[in-house]
């Protein structure tokens, strides 16, 4: 089962994408949701990173999830999820899981008028549908971080060890290949 963090934001879209791929999932809203589950992977959805980050701490979910990430199970973060997994956030002293050695820039393409949709290459995949909503990008990545996708010279998808992040929302499109990529690496 894949646990989808369901504190705020676009979590149902991820659950629907997983369902289309025939992958069972469950919502994580509080500590009790993690008990007696065979957790094969985690998804951190889009939403507002400040909200999700705060709720993670207040609902005491941060430590158990941090342990799961460190145990090496596959983790996938989109948009706000990327921010939560980044080792550093540009112009912000706060950090969350520090699970991937990147510096993420919030709202890097501007406000809602800067939101856009495009297609681009992701790893070996061509013309992947990408929806960016008030999206971040990766300003810096350590040398052992694998860059999977770039749009206008900006890194928008990357992977290091068990952690995959995208600045865009594959779950908002009908293109399931990024989720498939994540599942294959389970």
């Amino acid at each position: 089962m894949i646990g989808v963090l369901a504190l705020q934001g676009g979590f149902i879209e991820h659950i629907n994408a997983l369902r289309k791929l025939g992958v069972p999932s469950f919502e994580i809203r509080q500590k009790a949701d993690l008990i007696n589950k065979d957790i094969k992977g985690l998804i951190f959805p889009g939403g507002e990173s400040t909200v999700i980050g705060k709720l993670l701490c207040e609902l005491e979910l941060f430590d158990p999830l941090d342990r799961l990430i460190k145990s090496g199970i596959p983790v996938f973060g989109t948009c706000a999820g990327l921010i939560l997994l980044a080792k550093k956030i540009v112009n912000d002293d706060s950090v969350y899981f520090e699970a991937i050695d990147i510096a993420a820039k919030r709202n890097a393409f501007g406000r809602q008028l800067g939101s856009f949709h495009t297609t681009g290459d992701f790893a070996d995949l061509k013309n992947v549908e990408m929806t960016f909503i008030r999206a971040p990008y990766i300003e810096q990545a350590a040398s052992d971080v694998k860059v999977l996708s770039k749009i206008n010279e900006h890194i928008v998808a990357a992977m290091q060890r068990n952690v995959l992040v995208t600045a865009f929302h594959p779950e908002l499109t009908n293109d399931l290949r990024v989720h498939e990529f994540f599942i294959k690496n389970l």
Partner: protein
Amino acid sequence: MNRYELNKNLAQMLKGGVIMDVTTPEQAKIAEEAGACAVMALERIPADIRAAGGVSRMSDPKMIREIQNAVSIPVMAKVRIGHFVEAQILQAIEIDYIDESEVLSPADDKFHIDKTKFDVPFVCGAKDLGEALRRIAEGASMIRTKGEPGTGDIVQAVRHMRMINRQMRELQNMREDELFHAAKELEVPYDLVKFVHQNGKLPVVNFAAGGVATPADAALMMQLGAEGVFVGSGIFKSGNPARRAQAIVKAVTNYNDAKLIAELSEGLGEAMVGINEQEIELLMAERGK
């Protein structure tokens, strides 16, 4: 993909969250730290608009800009119903969402803004399915109930949410050949009626708004099917805004956990003083249908 799709997508990312009314950058920061997924920048909160009377308009763009600079979460602002120039101004300062709102004095007693002409997204209020689908046809990419603003009374928001959901269930249960007549009765385009018939939901995100004052109010609206909650006067008109705001945010995330909501409801200090709908002279929800 067009802007409308991207604008609906932003509303999807707000789901499960609380959007809070703020009047200053300081309040915006308190709201962000308390876990607001967006803030609504306005000069006076609805309770004060109601108390002051007179004409209420779009806020000073300078004040909105200061709030935009103070927080990283999306910033929304209100325009008067039908006032498309106020909307042009908000688009020019790159607002993240425009609320074409009955809380302000209407600028047009017949026509709403043609929201399809704008690149920035709009949220609009609705008391029933007809209003909701008319606003969507005009280009709204998010809907909210029209609970009576500034009263701290949840009854109207409950009525609107139940009404919209009941009418959607009715459409779902109709034969396909009955949908044309339903579109006529609802005074809305047929394709939107058909969408609801097939999907059992609105084509855009639907939030609760108006009269939410406690964590229990917020959870009530979520259990009734709201996808998130706007809180206006309920926070900064209460005894301890930061604490109440945090409690409402948590109640929205775990809206089915009564034990947690009980804990959240403890010792919050004074809720805003409510006004019953029978006690008010001006029903803002009657503005713009």
